[in-house]
């Protein structure tokens, strides 16, 4: 079984995230970057399957700037067998369509039985890349799963849907995405960090994948304007002296909120 896990480098959400007002791109220098938590959970699903099933190969795949290599390597330290990073200057500011095309081409090249992604990233939070990749690969999308079971040539799980949950099943090969209901990921240990240094790490360009970022055959989504909103400021703060509930009721009524 060969599992490809899609991981993204994102700005650490514990800090303020900045966009560059000139280029409109995420300002990676302005905040620390981390492996997206949901991608780590996706990797955990693959690794716990690999723990129980010998002969499982787990490949982490990321499309990211060159500087993200260290972040991608964390996936190897956690236990993935190998890593593939797609790096190309032409991918700066890539839209959803191009992102999906590149990832689908890379998955195709790597070879796979199962692709595991996060249901939505913490920066773009589009929540569409996995379904788009499934379309491009012509495989089922069993997405937004709260639980995952891989067995007998298929993958099953509970899909978190808009009006409750549903049980879904897909024949392999397939693309799945998981929600944050799945367990937290393991921490890389010292042995894993040392082993990671010897694991295969391949860097691919768009030319390697045969993807043309500039093609006019696909319509692209582009940013046409960007503005920063003034940050919120604090208002009144009181310490309860036994009447705070009354005072809040008054505030709400005065502001026509109650």
């Amino acid at each position, binding site marked *: 079984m060969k599992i490809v896990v899609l991981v993204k480098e994102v700005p650490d959400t*514990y*800090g303020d*995230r900045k*966009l560059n007002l000139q280029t*409109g791109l995420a300002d990676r220098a302005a905040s620390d970057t981390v492996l997206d938590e949901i991608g780590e959970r996706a990797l955990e699903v693959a690794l716990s399957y690999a723990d129980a099933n010998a002969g499982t190969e787990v490949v982490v795949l990321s499309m990211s700037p060159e500087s993200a290599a260290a972040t991608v390597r964390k996936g190897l330290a956690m236990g993935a067998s190998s890593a593939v990073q797609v790096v190309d200057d032409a991918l700066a500011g890539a*839209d*959803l*369509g191009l992102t*999906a095309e590149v990832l689908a081409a890379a998955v195709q090249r790597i070879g796979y039985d199962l692709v595991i992604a996060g249901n*939505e990233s913490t*920066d773009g939070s*589009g*929540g*569409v890349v996995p*379904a788009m*990749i*499934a379309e*491009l690969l*012509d495989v*089922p*999308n*069993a*997405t937004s799963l709260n639980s995952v079971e891989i067995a007998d040539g298929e993958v099953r799980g509970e*899909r978190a849907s*808009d*009006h*409750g949950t*549903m*049980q*879904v*099943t*897909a*024949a392999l090969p397939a693309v799945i995405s998981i*929600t*944050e209901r799945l367990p937290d990921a393991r921490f890389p240990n010292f042995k894993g960090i040392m082993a990671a240094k010897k694991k295969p790490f391949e860097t691919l360009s768009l030319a390697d994948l045969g993807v043309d970022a500039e093609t006019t055959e*696909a*319509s692209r989504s*582009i*940013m*046409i304007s*960007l503005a*920063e*909103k003034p*940050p*919120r400021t*604090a*208002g*009144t*703060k*009181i*310490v*309860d002296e036994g009447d*705070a*509930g*009354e*005072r809040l009721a008054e*505030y*709400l009524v005065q502001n026509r*909120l*109650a």
Partner: protein
Amino acid sequence: MTDFQADSILVLLDLTPSGELTKSAAGLLGAAAGVGTPVALIVGAAGAGEQAAADAAALGATHVLVAEGAEAGAQVTVPGADALAAAAELVRPDAILVPNSIEGREVAGRYAARSRSGLAVDAVAVSRDAEGVVAHHSVYGGAYNVDSAVTWGAPVITVREGAVDARAEAQPVSTEQLAVEASGRRAAAIGRVDEAVVTSSRPELRGAAKVVSGGRGLGSEAQFALVEQLADVLGAAVGASRAAVDAGYVPQSYQVGQTGVSVSPQLYIALGISGAIQHRAGMQTAKTIVAINKDGDAPIFEIADFGIVGDLFTVVPQLIAALEARKA
């Protein structure tokens, strides 16, 4: 055969498992009417379309395409994408609007990948300029406003549920069955469906005018009832922090924040929530923010219009009593 207006906007509407239009329909058709002539698409099981089509007309759809088939409830995403492809081919719209729900956005994703259309997700508004339809986004928890457009053709835009207040005028009912050729794309099969029980008396979190949310500070599932009591006195929806969801006080659908629901209500009350940046990302565009927390240094106070440093278990019951006394 119907002639479609040159400025047609194709709007995919979501149905609930029991076949009714979801609440996002009014805002989507309202947004569409602001930039063109709304044509709705409804995809459902056989017989599901008629009532939903009439409801869509009442909400502003000038024409409703109904794609009925058994696959709709049996396969994940593919039947919706196939229907959207057939409808787009027929209508040749200036833009396609889809609810940014789990089902909706994945249908939009598959369709955009198939047709190589430009895709913009989670728009909070749409407008039109000389070049075409523009999507307006509120990103990074509302810290930035971003406008996007596509390089050519009709953009596919998913619209945040509950974000658009505009409403379209009711239209006479005009319905047409849409013939959909199955793409034959491989799809996941849907088995048992468990519909979430909706507490009908309370407003839905998405798009609610008032929200009362509880965090880890509530301490237990039983004590979380205090959040619900205050919400009911105010006619508010109930939300929660991820810590409260993880602790099992409430289901995941209540989660407000970066990986939960984004809300922009008139009033947001945070009870026993520290105000982690990931929580703020889902609520800091609220008009008025009220926070009650016993820790005076909690970051939630940095964005609160009215903050109370105190024990929520004494302040909230007093607040409820005071509000009820004023009502009486």
